C-alpha cells in the first residue's frame, strides 16, 4: 500500500505521536507528582492533589509502555542501542517509575503521618526523576551517544551514567522538568478546589514554570544554533534501502541541527508552537483562564518535542564516537512488512484507545475537593 520510504516517515511521525501522547497525558501526572510536596502542605490537600490524577494516571502511563513497544517493533536498532547504552539511567528511570504506582495505591492504606509522608516523597521522586531523566536522555540524543556497531551490528557503548550529565543535557533535563511541572500546575488549576490554597500555589508554581520553560527552550535553541552540536549526512541515503546503519556515512558538523529549517521553513511551526504554547499557558494562568492554560502547556509540549524530532531529521540517534554507526530514519527501521502490519494495527486500535480514554476522562470530570476526599471511600 505504502512504499518503504513512506512507511518509515509515518513511523517516525508515529514515534513522535506516542512520545507527545505520553508527555501530554502522563506528563501532567509526572508534573503533579513533582509539585506534590510543595503545592500541598497537609494531608487533606495532598490527598486532593493525588486524587486529581488518581483515576486516570494509570491509563496515561501506558503511553510510555506502548512507546517502548512501538520503538521495539518499528525501530529495533534504536530500542537495542539506546536502552542498553543508557543502562543505568534507564534503571534510575524505571526504579522511580516503579515507586509511582505503589505510592498512589499504598499511601492511603495506613493513616499514620510518617507512612504518608514517605510515600509523598516517593511520589515526588516518581515524578521528578523521570521528568529529569527523559530530558537528559533527549539532550544526549541531540548531542550523539558514544556507541559503535561492529559488522554483526552488535552495539558497544563507551560511556557511563555520569557522562550523560553534560551541561547541555542538564539544560534539556531542566527544560523537561519545567515543562511537565507547568503542565501539572495547569492541570491542578482546573482539578482542585477553586480559590483554595492549593489552587493559589499551583498558579504561582505554574507561572514560574512557564517562564522557565520559555527561557530554557530559548537557551537550548541558542546552543543548538551556535554550539558544537549536530550531524550531517555525507552520503545520499537510500530511503528504500534495507536497514543497515553501517551503509550511511555521517560527519559531526556544528550547526547541522538547524539546517532543516532553511530547507523546509514550514518546520518552524514546531518551535513557534513551543514558545506560543508556553506564552498562552502563562497568560492563561495569570488571568485565570484555566482551560486555555492547560491547552497552552499541551501545545508547548507538542511544539518542543516536535522541534527536537524535526531538527534532527532524518537522524534518530547519532553516534558521537563513530559517526558512521548513527541511526537514521532510513537505516534503523523494521522491514516494510512489519511497519505495514503495525501501521494497520495502530490505525484500528489507536482511535479505539482514544475513544474510551476520553470516556474515562469524561466520567471522572470535575474538581476534586478536600470535602470529597474526606468522604469518598473510593479515593486514595
Amino acid at each position, binding site marked *: 500500500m505504502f512504499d518503504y520510504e513512506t512507511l518509515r516517515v509515518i513511523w517516525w511521525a508515529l514515534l513522535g505521536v506516542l512520545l507527545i501522547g505520553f508527555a501530554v497525558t502522563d506528563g501532567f501526572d509526572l508534573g503533579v507528582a513533582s509539585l506534590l510536596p510543595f503545592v500541598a502542605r497537609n494531608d487533606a490537600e495532598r490527598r486532593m492533589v493525588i486524587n486529581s490524577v*488518581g*483515576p*486516570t*494516571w*494509570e*491509563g496515561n502511563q*501506558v503511553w510510555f*509502555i*506502548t512507546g*517502548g*513497544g*512501538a520503538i*521495539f*517493533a*518499528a525501530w*529495533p*536498532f534504536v530500542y*537495542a*542501542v*539506546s*536502552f*542498553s547504552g543508557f*543502562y*543505568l539511567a*534507564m*534503571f534510575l528511570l*524505571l*526504579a522511580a*517509575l*516503579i515507586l*509511582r*504506582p*505503589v505510592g*498512589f*495505591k499504598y499511601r492511603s*492504606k*495506613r493513616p499514620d503521618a510518617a507512612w504518608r509522608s514517605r510515600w509523598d516523597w516517593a511520589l515526588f521522586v516518581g515524578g521528578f526523576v523521570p521528568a529529569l531523566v527523559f530530558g537528559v536522555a533527549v539532550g544526549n540524543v541531540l548531542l550523539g551517544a558514544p556507541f559503535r556497531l561492529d*559488522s*554483526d*551490528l*552488535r*552495539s*558497544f557503548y563507551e560511556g557511563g551514567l555520569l557522562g550523560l550529565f553534560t551541561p547541555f543535557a542538564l539544560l534539556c533535563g531542566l527544560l523537561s522538568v519545567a515543562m511537565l511541572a507547568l503542565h501539572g500546575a495547569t492541570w491542578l488549576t482546573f482539578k482542585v478546589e477553586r480559590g483554595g490554597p492549593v489552587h493559589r500555589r499551583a498558579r504561582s508554581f505554574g507561572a514560574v514554570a512557564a517562564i522557565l520553560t520559555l527561557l530554557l527552550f530559548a537557551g537550548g535553541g541558542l546552543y543548538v544554533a551556535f554550539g558544537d552540536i549536530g550531524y550531517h549526512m555525507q552520503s545520499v541515503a537510500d530511503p528504500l534501502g*534495507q*536497514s543497515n546503519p553501517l551503509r550511511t556515512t555521517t560527519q559531526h558538523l556544528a550547526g547541522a541541527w538547524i539546517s532543516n529549517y532553511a530547507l523546509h521553513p514550514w518546520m518552524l511551526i514546531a518551535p513557534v508552537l513551543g514558545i506560543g504554547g508556553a506564552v498562552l499557558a502563562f497568560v492563561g494562568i495569570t488571568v485565570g483562564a484555566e482551560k486555555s492554560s492547560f491547552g497552552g502547556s499541551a501545545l508547548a509540549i507538542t511544539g518542543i518535542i516536535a522541534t527536537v524530532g524535526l531538527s534532527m531529521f532524518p537522524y534518530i540517534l547519532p553516534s558521537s564516537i563513530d559517526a558512521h554507526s548513527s541511526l537514521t530514519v532510513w537505516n534503523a527501521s*523494521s522491514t516494510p*512488512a*512489519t511497519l505495514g*502490519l*503495525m501501521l494497520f494495527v495502530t490505525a484500528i*486500535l*489507536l482511535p479505539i*484507545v482514544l475513544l*474510551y480514554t476520553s470516556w*474515562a476522562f469524561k*466520567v*471522572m470530570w470535575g474538581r476534586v475537593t478536600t470535602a470529597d476526599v474526606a468522604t*469518598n471511600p*473510593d*479515593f486514595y
Partner: protein
Amino acid sequence: MDPGVVDLSRLQFALTALYHFLFVPLTLGLSFMLVIMEAVYVMTDRPIWRVITRFWSKLFAINFVLGVATGLTMEFQFGTNWSYFSHYVGDIFGAPLAIEGLMAFFLEATFVGLMFFGWNKMSKLAHLGVTFMVALGTNLSALWILVANGWMQNPAGATFNPETMRMEISDFGTVLFNPIAQAKFVHTVSAGYVCAAVFVLGISALYLLRGKYVGVAKRSMAVAAAFGLASSLSVVVLGDESGYALTDNQKMKLAAIEAAWHTAPAPAGITLIGIPDVAARTTRYAVEVPWVLGLIATRSLDTEVTGMSELVLKAQERITSGVVAYDAVQKLKTDPTNVRERARFELHKRDLGYALLLKAHVADPRLASPKLIAVTAWDVVPNVPLMFWSFRAMAFIGFYMIALFATAFVLASLRRHDSTRWFLRIALYSIPLPWIAIELGWMLAEIGRQPWAIEGVLPTFLATSTLSVAALWTTIIGFTVLYGALAVIEVRLMIAAIRKGPFEHVDDPVPDQSDTVVVPILPVAA
C-alpha cells in the same frame, strides 16, 4: 561475550520475571472472578454481592499495582539487557509487544481507574462492563506476551537476512497462530485462574475457621470452587504438552523432562520417578508406566519419542551444516551481491543458529574441528535434573489442585463447605501452592529452551547487551532491594486488608451472619 555478563543478565531477567509473575497470575484470575461476583450482584441486586465484589477488588488493587509496576521493567529489559536479541529479532518480536500495549495495557489500565473510582459515578451495569474490560485487558496482555514467547520457542514465519544481519518476518500469520503460543496461552491463563481461585478459597476458609464474615466467605468460596474446578481441569488437560513434537528443541525439552537419554521403541513409557544421572547419561531407579508418554506426546501408539542422544546427533549435523551458512554470511558482508555465496547461504540458512553455538568455544565457528562440533552438540541439552524435578513438582501440584477443587465443589454442592473444618484448613494452607507451580512452570519453559534465546536461531550467550559486570551488579542489587521492600509492604498491606475484612466503609451493609437476613443498602454518606 563475557560469561559473567551472560550469567548476570540471565539472573536479573529470571529475578525480575519470576517476581513480576508473582502478581500477574492473581490479576489474570481475580479480574474474571470479580466479573462473576459483580454479575451476580447486578443480576440478583443483593447488596451482599456488592460487598463481596468490593472486598476482593480491594485485594485485587493491592496486587494489581505491583504487577503494573514490575511490568515496566519487563517492557524495557529486552533493550537494556538483551540488546543483541532486540536487534536480531526485533522485526518479529517487537510487534506483539507493541500490540500488547495498544490492545491490552491501555484497556486494563484505563478501565482499572474507573473500576476503583467509578462505583458511584455510573450505573451498575456500566460498572460491570468496566470490570469486564479490565479482565479482558489483562487476559489479552497474556495472549500477546505469549505470542512473543511462543515465537522464541518455535520461531516460524521468519528468515535471516544477511544484508541487515537479523531475522526478518516472512509470515505474520504463522507467528500469530503458532500452536505453541496458543497452548501456552491457555495453560498460563488457566494457571492464573487456579491461582486466584485458591486465593479466594483459602482466605474465605480462614474467615470460616474463625467464624467471621460468614456470609461473604461462604459465597466467595462457592464461586471459587466452581471457577477453580473448571480452571484446574483446564490447566492439566489443556496443558503445555501439545507442542512437544513440533521442533527439535521442544522434543529435547520433553526428553529432558522425562530424562529420556535414548529413543525408546513406540509407544514410550512415562518415567514417574527416578534419579537422572547427568554424568552417566542414564536415569537410575526409574519407575515407568508403559505407553503413557507415547500417548500424551504423540497421540499415537506407533510414533517414537526421540531421546536426547539421538537429538544431540541431529544437532551435530545441524552445526556442521550451519558452519557453511556462517561462512557464506561472512563473505556476503563484504560482497552482498555474490550469487554463489547467496546460494550456499540459502541452502544452509536454517542451521545458521547452530553454528553460532560454536562461538561459546571458538571465536570463529569456521575453525571448529569435527571433535569440537561433536562436543558442542551436547550444549543443546538443558539442565536435565532441574527439568525432571520441576516438571514433577508442577504436575503434582496440578493434580492436587483438581482434587482440592473437586472436594470444594462437592462440599459446596452439599452446602457443607462452611462447616467441614479439615477441608477449610487444607484450603488455607494450599494458598502458596499455585504460585510455586507457576514459577516452576516458567522455569521449565525458559530453562528448557536453553541454550537458546530463540530456539535454533540465537544462543542465549550471544543475545546480551555489552554491559560491564559492575553495571549489572548495580541493577541486580538495586532491583532486589526495591522489589524486596515492596514485597514486604505488599504482604503486610494484604494481611491488614484481610484482617480488616469486607465491612470497612460507611456505605457497606452491616455484617450478614446468616443467609436469611436481607440487608438493606445504607445511603452513601455525602
